[in-house]
């Protein structure tokens, strides 16, 4: 790269710079430089000016159309798909950073994404199989035993053998079982009989194949490729599967992504999910407003919710916290801590009646009057 170009590399956004570089390749330096100079001038014209209260703008831009969002919890986009949470409840879920979303969904992209059969095969492979799904359980209270009758057809479908199932059950309930032909018998000698019921309930949920937590996996088409959409998430386990595209497979559970892939991934999931909700609702909001929210929630390295337990509740200023929620508690705590409020934020300055440090209030101007 020529020396003069380097100067622009830092000054212009990356994509703009690359595009210009490509397009001015044939031009001589003087002309090209002129184009770069003009672009830079134009770019600067559209900059956000210092002092702009971008936080308030973002909050308003998201909040104002909030009144137009539906409260309806979910919809079924198309016939075969898994429920996708949407609307205001989902948005609130995102800014609250719930541990588990109401409708956890994973998008499992595949290395080989053009064949439907392959996709179906993988979907079946990752779907969680419990004993309940492949067998019927009968309790024989007289003999104090539970009889598990396995459906051999279903077993075959998942490539399992009776012995495998027996082994899994044994591991779970820590008890010897008797294995028959397509049949497993568990004896529970201990009284009362209630114990037997407890054990059968436990056995029903024993996970014998697939990935734990994935209640259902369906194959859907997305931008011309086959993708497995799951109901229930387990990002950590799914990433161990050989056939999937590890670079794109993602969960809609922000907390989970934070744990498995890290904070930057969590930020992007937050951003994409929020943008997706607004897009579904046909609401038009510029992406940078959502980016600011996502960035604020993730700057510290952990995902923090918006609200009492998160950003608002952890502000440095006592007055700002007291003005939001739990007024008295914050004031009482401040007193024993001997907190000093330096009045650097907006809310504090409004409370004490000073100009706010934003916009024109951020600039200090001193004029020297010349005496006549």
């Amino acid at each position: 790269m020529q020396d003069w170009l380097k100067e622009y590399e830092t000054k212009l956004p990356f994509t703009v710079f690359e595009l210009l570089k490509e397009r001015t390749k044939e031009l001589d330096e003087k002309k090209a430089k002129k184009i770069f100079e003009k672009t830079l001038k134009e770019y600067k014209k559209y900059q956000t000016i210092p002092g702009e209260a971008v936080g308030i703008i973002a909050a308003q831009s998201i909040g104002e159309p909030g009144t137009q969002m539906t409260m309806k919890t979910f919809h079924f986009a198309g016939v075969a798909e898994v429920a996708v949470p949407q609307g205001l409840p989902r948005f609130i879920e995102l800014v609250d950073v719930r541990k588990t979303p109401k409708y956890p969904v994973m998008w499992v992209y595949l290395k080989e994404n053009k064949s439907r059969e392959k996709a179906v095969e993988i979907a079946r492979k990752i779907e969680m199989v419990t004993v309940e799904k492949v067998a019927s359980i009968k309790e024989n209270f007289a003999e104090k035993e539970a009889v598990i009758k396995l459906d051999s057809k279903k077993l075959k479908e998942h490539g399992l053998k009776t012995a495998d199932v027996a082994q899994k059950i044994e591991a779970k309930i820590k008890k010897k079982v008797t294995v028959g032909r397509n049949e497993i018998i568990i004896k529970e000698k201990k009284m009362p009989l209630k114990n037997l019921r407890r054990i059968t309930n436990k056995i029903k949920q024993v996970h014998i194949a697939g990935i734990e937590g994935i209640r259902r996996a369906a194959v859907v088409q997305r931008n011309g490729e086959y993708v497995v959409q799951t109901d229930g998430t387990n990002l950590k386990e799914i990433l161990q599967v050989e056939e999937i595209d590890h670079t794109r497979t993602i969960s809609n559970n922000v907390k989970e992504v934070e744990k498995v892939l890290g904070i930057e991934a969590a930020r992007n999931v937050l951003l994409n999910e929020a943008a997706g909700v607004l897009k579904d609702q046909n609401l038009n909001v510029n992406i940078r407003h959502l980016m600011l929210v996502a960035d604020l929630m993730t700057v510290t390295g952990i995902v923090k919710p918006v609200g009492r337990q998160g950003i608002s509740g952890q502000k440095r200023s006592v007055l700002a916290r007291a003005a939001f929620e739990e007024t008295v508690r914050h004031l009482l705590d401040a007193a024993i801590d001997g907190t000093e409020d330096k009045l650097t934020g907006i809310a504090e300055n409004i409370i004490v009646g000073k100009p706010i440090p934003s916009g024109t209030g951020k600039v200090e101007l001193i004029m020297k009057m010349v005496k006549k």
Partner: protein
Amino acid sequence: MIEKEIKSIKFGLLSPEMIRKMSAVRIITPDTYSDDGYPIEGGLMDLRMGIIDPGLRCKTCGGRMNSCPGHFGSVELVRPVIHIGYVKMILTLLKATCSSCGRILVGPDKIEELKELMLREEEGKTIIEEEEKEALELIKERMGEEEKDITEEKALDLIERAKKASKCPHCKAKQGKIKLVKPTTFYEDDKRLLPSEIRERLERIPDADLKLLGINPEAARPEWAVLTVLPVPPVSARPSIILETGERSEDDLTHKLVDIIRINQRLADNISAGAPQLIIEDLWDLLQYHVTTYFNNEVSGIPPAKHRSGRALKTLFQRLKGKEGRIRNYLSGKRVNFSARTVISPDPSLSISEVGVPQEIAEELTVPVHVTEWNLDEMKKFIKSKTYPKANYVIRPDGRRKKITELNREEIVDELTPGYIVERQLVDGDISFFNRQPSLHRVSMMAHKVRVLPGKTFRMNDATSEPYNADYDGDEMNLHIPQTEEAKTEAEELMPVEKHIISIRHGEPLVKGHHDHVSGIYFLTNSKAWFTREEASWLLGQIGIKELPEPRSNGKYHGKDIFSMLLPEDFSITYLSKMCVHCGTCEKEKCEFEAYVKIEKGKLISGAIESKGVGGELLKKMFLEKGPKITREYLDRVTKISLATLMLKGLTIGLSDYDISEETQKKIKKILSNGEKEVNALIEKYRKGELESTPGKTVEETLEDIIMDVLARTRTDVGRVIERSLGQENPAVLMSKSGARGSLINVTQMAGCIGQTSVRGKRISRGYRNKSLPHFKEGDISAGARGFIKSSFKDGLKPTEFFFHAMSGRDGLVDKGINTSVSGYMQRRLINALMDLIVEQDSTVRDASSNIIQFAYGEDGLNPMKTGEENLKEKISD
């Protein structure tokens, strides 16, 4: 000039000494006023605590009612009581410290460890404050933060350890088990700990140990949370009100203080009389109750103190708390002067940057003008004037404010010199803030130029209704008049309507033509818009243009040419209007629907202008290319000329516009019955058990999905037939096509069929057992029995249909109500979290503690309002 400025606020507890020191009077009697209505000395209304009656003087500072800020008094409590806000802290301290030596109940090694951590943290901080260092230091800072977390964790762990200890590692004393019986009674191994004993124990805890326990001994010694003296707030903080009957009604706080003083007195009497311990303890508990409820009247476990009427008293905590509390209602939100409020109505003759103000309001609101030698005569004219516009007040250089009356008018005119401030009435051209609540975004408040008009309502150009989300069915709006030069300049530079035509939310126009503006401009610009010379000159005369365009070959004037005169000369744009039917092969200029809008060098070549022309693409491009001023002028003229065109051409709809030919009616009937048949067939299939479920759903759910699908399609089919039958010329179709008002669904529902009604997003199934209304058989799930309405609004609904419609309508209302409150709270939380984020001089986005949130706003620093950047819809693809 700001003389004193608050730089910071430090919080802390008041020590008893401090309370006594700041006390202007010791309150000893529970009475307030003597029989002659004069405050009793040593009573709760003592004149030394400030005054609330006009005419009296404060006995402490000598100030009058509006100059004396009020002074605290105090009550000496004969027995200490616990401060209800610090019960938790006291419990922790009692558990974590030794009952005999007061030391924290962990070994010296642990203490040292934590101390060291805390020390290091402090030092780390000072290093960074001292000087900026390079990257390495910054990394250290980050690590320092992590260390802080470790310190915090360690401290918590230390407290937990101390709480569990049964023997003091310092003095080897055995520790009893401390128990709290809510709200304020403490026990040690089932033996009652009286507040006096608790206080003694807290006193023993050394300062050094308090630091480890998260208490700053300089701001708050824990024993101060066990009160021995109670501060009595100044009377101005608890003013009594005089009822019409002449009776005095005291403030809730005064009532509570009376209780406290009375019980305190009784306790003192009993003690000095040597009453038995039991009685003293009872009275002591009663004193504790009163002090507790004085602080917080919503403590769980004890009944709230009540008025005679049964209403719970509003005491200190309640005064601060919540939306109507001191902080949110009086500190975060403030009342203002120089404002007005009245009903709004639209007025197309105003510019979008203007607001029509009733003269009555203009006479009341004033603008302060500094008198200089250059405006002296002008100001004198205002003062001399006996009718609008005149001056209401003058402010002398010494700050004295004088009302101008008949008597002193001449006198003031004579003495007026530079240095005076004249408060003159509002006149045309003054700047004002115009606002409609709820102020959900920043364009809910914009600056308008005042136009004083007759009438009693605020007038505005309807193009500005969208940012305010206003209509004219009785909406009221507020007007504020900035009072300083700074405020006026900011209003004019930052807040005028024309600079907010494009929203910063999505870079699309918000200020734009609606309704009549759209249909009017359509009538002006479609191919049949021919005007005679008279008509054309009248139209252009409406917007002050005094020349005519070239007539066309037939000697008449075409609307397209007239419209072209409104456009800036070098403005070009080509777009497909809303009339486009997406026919596949674009005929461009020859489009039969005139959907191909082409403007070249300020001339409308082809296409009819519709909603995108008075908003949307055209306005956006004009704003970005030509700037606010030209766009405003365009909007002002378009709104006027489109209404003028409507006056010539006229647009009206009546019942007959929804008449459908018999043939079409038959078609509709057929579509409906086909739909019904299809649904019935599905139900039949389901009953036979032949319907296959989609994965993850039950058969019933699948059936519902398909039925909904079929019925929705049926309605759309009806709509299509109706549209064809009514034709493009039909005013209702025209309105929906041009984007003036309504949609094709509205037309369909009026002329054809209303379609499926829903409750909670599903077909209506609730009401009776297995049926929605008594008119149906149990288990009937056909279209009609589940809320499908075959009738149209014009034909009228059948009784069952009418009921379904009402159900659906109510569901919508309920949903809307819930939705607004939920989304309102979400917005409050977002605003609170994000409000401190501001772009700094170095173009980074930072919060109040100067932490960098983004290095460049939105990663490239661009402002969507300036770029008009493409929005989410296009940007995010799955």
